[in-house]
Each structure stands twice: as structure tokens, then as C-alpha cells.
């Protein structure tokens, strides 16, 4: 029996220790906001936080998450930075298909937690592991800057 702390709640799961956290979240616990894109740490769709650090859950054995605080896209809105990031994402209307965006927001939130005022180079470094086939990259960059500065840089869509 493995006990995981996910978004502030403990869950008990009966799974092999080498099972990647991604599949424990999605198929066992039912938290499907974290996505499968490649399974080999190439796309970032499966990004979650482990004690605030972004990790690719598709290659992280669940045993590596024991005694750590796991945060997923379902829980990130409970943090101040996560909330701001989600709002910037909506304000700039980043998402197209949206499939990559859970991972994008998790990577972006971890960046801002460590680097409150990121430069373009910081953004390049933190975000280039997250693929987006819809090509929303320019808006991702703009949304991170908006969340960081609170300054609205692009014309905002109306509700």
C-alpha cells in the first residue's frame, strides 16, 4: 500500500512501485487533468509538481513521490501563483485544443515560484520542454509575463 499526498489530500493506492506516477494519477486515482503525450519525457504534457519542483510524471516511478507533496493541475489553482497563471491564460486566451496546457501551466507556475520576474531566456529555459502542437507558444510567453508583472500586454478578450 502506497500513500500519496496529492493536492493536500492523502490517497492510498495498491500499485507496483515502478508504475509511473502519471498512470497512478490518471488510471487509478482518476485525476485525468495530467496528460499523456509521449511517455519518454519529451513533451511535458504530464508535468506535475513534487514539493514545488516540476517533474515529468510519465517517467517518475510512483515510489519516488512517496513522502512528497504532489500538486497537479486540478490543485494548482489553490496557490496564488497558480491562480494568477490560470487567469493570465484565460485573459490572453492561450489554449487551442488545450491538451498540452495542463503541463504548460504547471511548468510556468514552477518557473514563477522560483523566478518571480523571468526574462525571455528564463522562459525559454523553463518552457522548452513543453511541446504544443497547436503552436500557442507566443501566447504562453505573453501569459507568463502577464502573470509575473500583472501588466496586460496584449488586447484582452472580453467575457
Amino acid at each position, binding site marked *: 500500500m502506497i500513500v500519496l499526498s496529492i*493536492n493536500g489530500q492523502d490517497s492510498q493506492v495498491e*500499485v*507496483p512501485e515502478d*508504475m*509511473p506516477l502519471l*498512470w497512478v494519477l*490518471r*488510471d*487509478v*486515482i*482518476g*485525476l*485525468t*487533468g*495530467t*496528460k*499523456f*503525450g*509521449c*511517455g*519518454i519525457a*519529451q*513533451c511535458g*504534457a504530464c508535468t506535475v509538481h513534487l514539493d514545488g519542483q516540476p517533474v515529468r510524471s510519465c517517467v517518475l516511478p510512483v515510489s519516488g513521490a512517496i513522502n512528497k507533496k504532489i500538486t*497537479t*493541475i*486540478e490543485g*494548482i*489553482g489553490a496557490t496564488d501563483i497558480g491562480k494568477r497563471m*490560470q487567469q493570465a*491564460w*484565460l485573459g490572453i*486566451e492561450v*489554449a*487551442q*485544443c*488545450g*491538451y*498540452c*496546457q*495542463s503541463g504548460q*501551466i504547471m511548468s510556468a507556475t514552477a518557473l514563477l515560484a522560483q523566478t518571480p520576474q523571468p526574462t525571455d531566456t528564463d*522562459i*525559454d529555459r523553463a*518552457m*522548452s*520542454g*513543453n*511541446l*504544443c*502542437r*497547436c*503552436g500557442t*507558444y*507566443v*501566447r*504562453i510567453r505573453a501569459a507568463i509575463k502577464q502573470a509575473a508583472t500583472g501588466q496586460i500586454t496584449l*488586447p484582452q*478578450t*472580453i467575457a
Partner: protein
Amino acid sequence: MAIRVTPVEDGDGPLNPSRRELIKRGGLVVAFIWLSGPMRAWGMAETARIDQGQPQFAPNAFVRVGNDGSVQLVMPSIEMGQGAYTGQATLLAEELDVGLDQITVEHAPPNRKLYSNPMLGEQATGGSTTIRYCWSTLRNAGAAARYLLVSAAAQHWKVDPSQCTVARGVVTHAPSGRTLRYAELADAAAQVTPPDKAPLKSPSDFQLIGKPLRRVDTPGKVDGSLPFGIDIRVPGMKVATVQACPTFGGRLVSVDDTRARAVPGVLAVVKLDNAVAVIGEHFWAARQGLDALDIHWDRGANGKLTTEQLFKDLAEASEHGTPIVGRDVGHVDGVSGKLVSATYQLPMLAHATMEPINTVVHVRPDACEIWVGSQVPARCVDVATKITGLPAERIVVHNQYMGGGFGRRLFEDSVEQAVAIAKQVDYPVKVIWTREEDIAQDRYRPAYYDRISSTLDGQGKPVAWTHRTTGASVLATFAPSAMGKNGLDPDLVECAADLPYEMPNMRVEWVRHDMPSGLAVGWWRGVGSTHNVFVVESFVDELAHAAGKDPVAFRKSMLGDNPRALAVLELATQKAGWGQGALPPRHGRGVALAAPFGSYLCVVVDVEVSPQGEISLRRAVTAVDCGMVVNPNTVEAQIQGGLVFGWSAALYSGITLKDGAVEQRNFNDYRVMRLNQTPPMEVHIVHSKEQPGGIGETATVMAMPSLLNAVFAATGVRLRTLPIDRSALVSDNNALKAALSAATPLDIPSDVASVARMLV
């Protein structure tokens, strides 16, 4: 975590839908709700509530007004990121006079009669047709519903309907100041006789159309709550993953599953003619089981196929095959002058949608239920009928949001396979393809081989033009009846036969050369236009160079009377600063102009090419005239994303075959652009009163030639084969060698490594 089922209130129950029930529910209802845990079935609870017997006003296939105040709009196209739901909801809401924040949207059920796209002759989403075909249909549907609601109010007040106005779903009788909400009118409106045609607003009265309104589908895309097909979980469901024969047309001979069955959590191994699936308690068990199989394939007739052979065959067909004429104007043969000729080659491409292929299927003796994100939902019913032998009315397809389509989900092969797997077990199965399977078993954009030539007169003006393209037809299998009488597939000459330029003598033709049988081809974002505009606009650049003219001035001189093309050309080049000052060495600016999908675009790209041949995009400026704009925010997003999609392909993507199998496996060797490689992009939308044109694929069409023309401007090297071969762009071999020897292996992108192999 417990998953419990709450049946809708009907004797038949959700898992045993009768025909009556299916009709009533329109096959739409997800007949369960999650009772525990943090997940919720996004947007679906509403459906269940409405369909549990609340009276509603449903004047047509698209509008539902409940007497509880709910307004549901049924979306005939599907949402795969392109903004279709927002655009279509806007058209309906505009004429219905409700706000986009007051409505919910629903996926249309499979129903060709109600939801076919007349431009495609099928209930299909593709070809950048969504707004074009719905522009009138959906506004009429909204206007008709509004007419009935207003009539109901006027009858209630015993006043003339012309004295009533509507705003945000509230009808007002101005002279008396009385108001009624749509919710209060829904029941009465259902009794009013529908009009033949209700009046439409004049564009100057539009409240929503043309505004950058918030997308209707995004709130659930920033908190993980919106489910895609891959996120569907139904009671008792197990998870499968599959491997099909790596060679096309090959078959399964035998499989030793002893080790697979020993994997904890593996439940079953299912054999198909050409594939093996492993079903497990979760994906991880299934995946490990699949890896533990010992499979023996009959590799079939294509077992030795290589990409080199494929292009050899294409070249041969181009030379000796029988061309079908797509356009023949004047006399190309008798023209004298300076002849310029070139040969272009385009690779097979995979879609690599971010959401890997998946389907949830439950096959029961009397019914089959499918959850899938599909661009062709009615075809999913067809294949399920074929595999299960059940009549169509016993098949329920719940369409889902898609994590990208790009043409991949116009094919139902994976749904057919999933039904065949699920048929062999008595529980629901979610079949998920690994990324490796997704790339190895795609419906590939075919490879093309194009020979093109033009004759320049004494002033450097092109006076004759011939273009012979050679490649496979997608249409021939996708919609055979749409093929031309002479056997022409119009897709093959799209944007080649209809140039934006004046050309007194021209012949455009196609030599059909299908892929070896078993190697299925498919639509890929931008379809024929993506292929042809790359060839045409690269070649126009070559001609400008041969004529010693500036590429923009050269294009202008060829335009003749084409004001919309001229306007985007002038706007984009002016905003990009074309011709204003020299660029630094190894920097270049490229232009492309075309009119794909009923829209006009000009894209100007700036690049820098390092001495080692690495390309950095610096800036992109687009001008677009897509007629009347429904949502400028969507137009801008589709241009930005479409460019990245096209550049990705030009820079990296190519599917190659060795021993009959696809060599690429995952995003490590089927590379796509990343954030750090994406330049700032400007999008300028031309104000236009023309009919709406397409938008979703247009920028992908423009991306490749604008980039390649910029690379030529930077390096003087004309690349005619995609993807780009960086080794051809190296200006300083010693610098490259030094950089490579200083770098650790991890620093070296795989494409640079291939350059290195050539040098060392």
C-alpha cells in the same frame, strides 16, 4: 476511487439504450455522472438535466432553450482547438440575441441528415470549411428561433412583434416597458408555427460577430477539468494498448504471450488480423504486457519498402506516367525565352496530435457505445456497424473534445480497431495508442514529387508556366464520388491550377501514383495547398532571382487585377519593413503570397542562419484577408499556430521507411518546434466585407515557402527538398567541427549530429 452510475430516469437505463431512448437523447447524453473525487464531466451534467424531461424549445437541430433559462447550442462541427465551437456559437447567438456567456455548447451526435457539412458532403470537420459553410445556416437557425420566441411574447402581450426588441435573451415591448425572458417563453414558442425564413441582421447591427470574444471551451482547459476522449472513464472499464504490424499490409502470424500474461494487472491478450492488443487494469500494465509479447509478423508485400524506393518510383511516374490535366491555358509549348526549371520533393508527414489516438468502446450483445474524439462521427457508426453486425441505431457515439486533429481524426481506422478489440471482451475498454504507435500507424500525408518550369520573356516576365505534380490521391479513398470526371483529384492541383498571378500560358497536371497498397494516406493540415504553395511560391522566388528582380516587386508585377492579393502583399511587406535597409550577413527575409481556402495571405519571415547551418526564426509578419471575420482572436490564434505547425514540418518533419516500417518513434526523432524556437509574430487582419474564407489551415500553407525563401535570402542556397537539410547551409565547416568537439553529446540536436556525420 468508486465510480458509480446514476441512470437517467428511463426504464431502459443508460447502458441499454432502446431506439426510442437514443432518438430522445440524440445519442448525446453521457449517462453517468462522477459522484466522487475531484473530477467532473464537464458540460455534460447540463445535458443530463435537460434530457431528464424538462420541457424545452427545440426549433431546429442547433438551438435548445429550456424553461429553466438554459440555452444550449448544438455544434455541427467538432472542436479540436481551431475555435469551431466559439465561431459557430457566435453565429447562432448573434441572431438569437443571447450572450456567449449565457450559453452552453454540446457536441452534435452522429446524424448525417442534420449535421452534414455540404462543402464536404459528410458530417465532417475539415478543409477550413467550418465558418464558410455555417455562415448562413447557423445565423438562419438562430434567427428562426428568435422569431418564434418574439412571436410568443407578442402573442402573450397581444402586440405587434415589430414593437419588440431582444437583448441578452430578454424580450422587451418598448411602448409598455414589459419584458419576458426566453426561459418564460420557451414553452409557448414551441407552439408557434415556424417561419419559412426569418430576417437576418444587417452586418452593421452585429453585436458579437467580429468581436474578440472569449472562447467557449477554454475555462475547463486551464484547470484540467475538461475531458478529452483519452480522459473518459466508464464503470468497469479496462485499459488496452496495441501494436499493429509495423509494415503496411502485413499480418499477425503468431504471438507468444506467456510473459505478458505474467505481468501483474494484465487481463487479456487480444489478437486481430494485423495487430495484438493487451488489456490491463491500467495503461501501465497493458504497456508492460505489450512490451513482453513475442510477436511473429508476416511482413507482407511491403516488407522491403524504403523511402528511397518511394521517391525513385515517384520520379519514374513523373517522367513516364500519364498526366491528368488540371488547367490548360494558352499554349505553353510555343513560347520562347529564358527557361527556368526545378524539381521539388516533399516527404510523408505524420500528424502527431498532442493527444495520442484513443477510443473507449463497450460492445454488448444488443448495443455498442463509443466515446471518441472524431472529425467524422457518422463514419464511426459505420465501422462499428461493420464490426459488430449491429444495426446503426444500436450504436451510440459520444463525440469528445480533441487534443488536436490536423486531419488525423478524419480517419476512423483506430475506432474500427478499438471496436474489434472490445468485441472480444464483455467489459468496456479504453484503447490508447502509445506515441510510438501513433507515429508508426498514422495516415500519412503522401510524399510528392513536383517538376515545375517557366519561361521568362526579355523583360523577365513569366509568359509560360508548367507544373507537373506526382503523388497519391487521398480523396480517391476518402470520398471517391468527389473525384473529377477525368480522374482528377482536385486536391492535387489546389493553389497550383488557380494561381493569384496572371499567366497567359499555363499547364498544370497531375500524375497519379498511389502508395503501395496497405500504406494508407491521409489529410494533413492545409492538404493540397500546403504542398502546392510551397512549390509555387518557392519557384516564384526562383524566377524573381532569375529575372534579377526583387521578390515583392516581381510578385506585384504578376498580379494583374487582383486587389485582395495586392492588399495583403502591400500590408505585410510594409509592416515587415521590406526593402528598408540591408540585413546583416546570414540574415534573410522571405515572402510568400497565396489565396488558399478562399482567403488571401501574405507572410514575411526573417531568419538568421548560423555558420553551422542552424536556422533561427527572428520575426514573422502576416497580413490576412479572410473576408468577414467572426472572431479576430481566433483568426490571430490560427495564424500563429498554423505557422508553427508548418515551420515544424519544414524544419524537422519527415516520415521515412526502412524495411517497410516507419523509422521515427516519438518526439525525439519526429521533432517539432519548441517555445524557444518560436519568433514574435504579428498578424494584421484586413477589414473586409467579402464572404468569410477559411482560416484554420491557411497559415500552415504559407509557413514553408516564406521560411525557405528567407533561408535563400540569408544564404543563397535554394532548398527544394523538405525537411530542410542543414548540412547544405553550413558556411564554415571548421566552426562547426570546433563547436561539435566542444559540445557534450547532449548539447547536440540530432539534426546537427547528422551534419557532423557528413563532415567527420
